[in-house]
């Protein structure tokens, strides 16, 4: 708890205050305060760099038509650069994909899936959320007229489900998140309010502080004002909802404090307040790939699809990229003044190149996240109709499942696609070793524990992804150890000769689209500065 003297000292210097906050409130408190002051932007930049000067006929070969590559091409082309984009896939967007009817995915194992969702249904198997503070992503949704809708990232009416949890009387039984959340908040507030009321925290608090804190705790925990007791609250839901006429409703009784404490789900409630998860959360109408389509409308004519990069060469004067046409198998060379390479490092480190040994060493320091998701189409939105759940996540401790997420589109339509699992690490690897049919079975059996037989009965079709098995991605996102962040990451942010890297892997927002976009902004500025500097030298020499 913050000491009164330190907290109220006038003129306390900002750094000292932040350190105090960090010591008392954890990093979340520090980040909140810094954001309020605008000292660090939530994401580092909100608009592309304002660059002047002309490209003078320079050519930047961009490897990869994901968000980083397309961002750089779009912005550099405005300055007059020639920016051909080499893309191995047959479509633009990189990992920014949406599965809808007809979408085909082949894993490196050779396993192929075709999405068989109904027309109008879709599943964001890659990125799926745009936090309000990812201003760079929102810059381009605005720029390219990509309509947004709310992605419900928190729904207290969804379920909390724990299995085989020691001492948890709700083990194997679904409980509304709102009940647990209200109860744990209420009881905690009650304990603290009574402690404050009984002067047990007088060393920390003035009389005025005490009164204010008790007021806050009464409001926070919905306590009885005079007894300072938690006796339940409408916010946890009613036994019978209030209605019209002579129906005031029947309040619900809280669960026992000890029972709530034993429910492991209570430890994930605050996740919604973490930096990347806070409201307001957005998604593009019609699927995340609408953002990729927006970029594609602007730079699609620069993209050469189905071209695999097989060699990356450079000398003092320029770069030479050897590409292989996936259709014909023929190779050819593409030459330019610079190369901006957005290929994930998990893939890039297997491509022969003239990158320096130091650079290659640094690339090897990064690991990539194994992660998987499954979209399940149901013929009836039983979660809405029967459980009154509109979007958000049911949180579970089911291994390999994690959260079940309900769609934030097509409310009250007949059918819908929900996310049946979102797994990581060794869970993701284990599930990915299954066939698609086995993955579906795995997801259905888990979901049935929470939603009963409707989960099996209404199921129609599934589409799953395991990002570590997806060609040209080989992982969900870069994952930096603190050691690698310190030793390898700075090296990779610098040019290696005439080759520069960009992508989510070169950001502190790994796995987020803003990381890719802002990394491209930073790197393209370096290219432009270098081009300007060398152009000036040439002029001076002449």
């Amino acid at each position, binding site marked *: 708890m913050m000491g009164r003297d330190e907290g109220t000292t006038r003129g306390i210097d900002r750094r000292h205050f932040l350190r105090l906050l960090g010591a008392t409130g954890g990093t979340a408190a520090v980040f909140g305060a810094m954001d309020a002051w605008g000292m660090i932007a939530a994401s580092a930049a909100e608009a592309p760099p304002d660059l002047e000067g002309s490209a003078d006929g320079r050519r930047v070969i961009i490897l990869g038509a994901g968000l980083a590559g397309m961002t750089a091409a779009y912005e550099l082309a405005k300055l007059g650069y020639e920016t051909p984009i080499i893309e191995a896939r047959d479509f633009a967007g990189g990992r920014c994909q949406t599965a809808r009817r007809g979408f085909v995915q082949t894993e*490196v194992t050779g396993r192929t899936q075709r999405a068989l969702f109904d027309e109008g249904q879709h599943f964001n198997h890659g990125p799926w959320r745009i936090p309000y503070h990812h201003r760079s992503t929102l810059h381009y949704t605005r720029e390219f007229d990509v309509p947004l809708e709310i992605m419900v990232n928190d729904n207290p009416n969804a379920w909390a489900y724990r299995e085989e949890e020691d001492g948890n009387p709700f083990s194997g039984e679904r409980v509304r998140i709102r009940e647990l959340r209200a109860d744990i908040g209420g009881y905690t507030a009650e304990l603290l309010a009574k402690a404050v009321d009984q002067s047990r925290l007088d060393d920390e608090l003035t009389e005025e502080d005490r009164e204010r804190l008790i007021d806050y705790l009464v409001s926070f925990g919905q306590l009885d004002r005079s007894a300072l007791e938690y006796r339940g609250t409408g916010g946890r839901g009613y036994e019978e909802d209030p209605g019209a006429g002579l129906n005031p409703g029947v309040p619900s009784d809280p669960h026992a404090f000890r029972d709530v404490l034993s429910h492991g789900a209570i430890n994930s409630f605050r996740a919604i307040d973490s930096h990347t998860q806070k409201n307001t959360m957005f998604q593009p109408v019609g699927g995340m790939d609408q953002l990729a389509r927006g970029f594609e409308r602007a730079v699609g004519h620069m993209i050469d699809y189905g071209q695999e990069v097989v060699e990356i060469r450079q000398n003092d004067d320029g770069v030479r990229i050897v590409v292989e046409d996936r259709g014909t198998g023929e190779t050819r060379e593409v030459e330019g003044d610079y190369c901006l390479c957005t290929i994930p490092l998990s893939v890039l*480190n297997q491509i022969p190149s003239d990158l320096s040994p130091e650079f290659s060493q640094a690339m*090897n320091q990064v690991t*990539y996240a194994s992660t998987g998701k499954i979209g399940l189409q149901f013929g009836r939105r039983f979660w809405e109709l029967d459980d009154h759940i509109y979007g958000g996540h049911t949180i579970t401790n089911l291994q390999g499942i994690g959260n079940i997420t309900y769609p934030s589109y097509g409310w009250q339509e007949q059918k819908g696609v929900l996310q049946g699992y979102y797994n990581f*690490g060794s869970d993701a*690897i284990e599930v990915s070793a299954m066939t698609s049919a086995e993955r579906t079975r795995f997801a259905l059996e888990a979901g049935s524990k929470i939603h009963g037989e409707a989960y099996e009965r209404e199921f129609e079709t599934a589409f799953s992804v395991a990002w570590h098995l997806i060609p040209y991605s080989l992982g969900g996102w870069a*994952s930096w150890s603190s050691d690698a962040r310190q030793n390898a990451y700075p090296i990779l942010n610098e040019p290696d000769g005439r080759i520069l890297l960009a992508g989510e892997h070169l950001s502190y927002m790994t796995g987020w689209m803003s990381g890719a976009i802002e990394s491209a902004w930073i790197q393209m500025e370096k290219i432009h500065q270098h081009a300007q500097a060398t152009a000036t030298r040439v002029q001076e020499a002449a």
Partner: protein
Amino acid sequence: MTNHRKHPIRRRARAVIGRGSLAALLVALAAGLMLAYGAAEAEDTVEPEPAEQETVDVDLPEDWFEQGETLYLQNCSACHQSAGDGIPGAFPALAGNPFVTGHPQGIVHLLLNGRAGMPAFGGLPDEELALITSYVRNAWENEAHPVDADMIATVRDGDELDLESGGPMERPGAGQ
């Protein structure tokens, strides 16, 4: 799949480790690493010098190979495939890979920390990592001495495995 059980199965498996020169082992390690992860043009493979053999006790359950196989299928086979032959251009083969069968320091460090796109498996307990490591070093046509949990712990603690014995070094209380 063919199971090649190269080591006598007993309560405390007798492991065999080559006592080649330190330099030869390190060179072999580096060559294997390049083959496995990274440099696409590793042309020179370096054979470790033929070495005298020394046996070292490792503490593994009797059915370490079977347990290791189960864990391998769960945690590794999605990428490296159940036959250990990997996927060209994506995931290196483990069968016949000198990095896998070389000095255990390298592969244990890789498992714990990840490298070149491969995720870290340091979240798994030492016992399971020992079973996985021992399995991949002896599955298919591979042949190398098994590794026990104490050896995993040694590498996890940032210490070097004793190249002479293959056992833990400077780790008080390590089970030998």
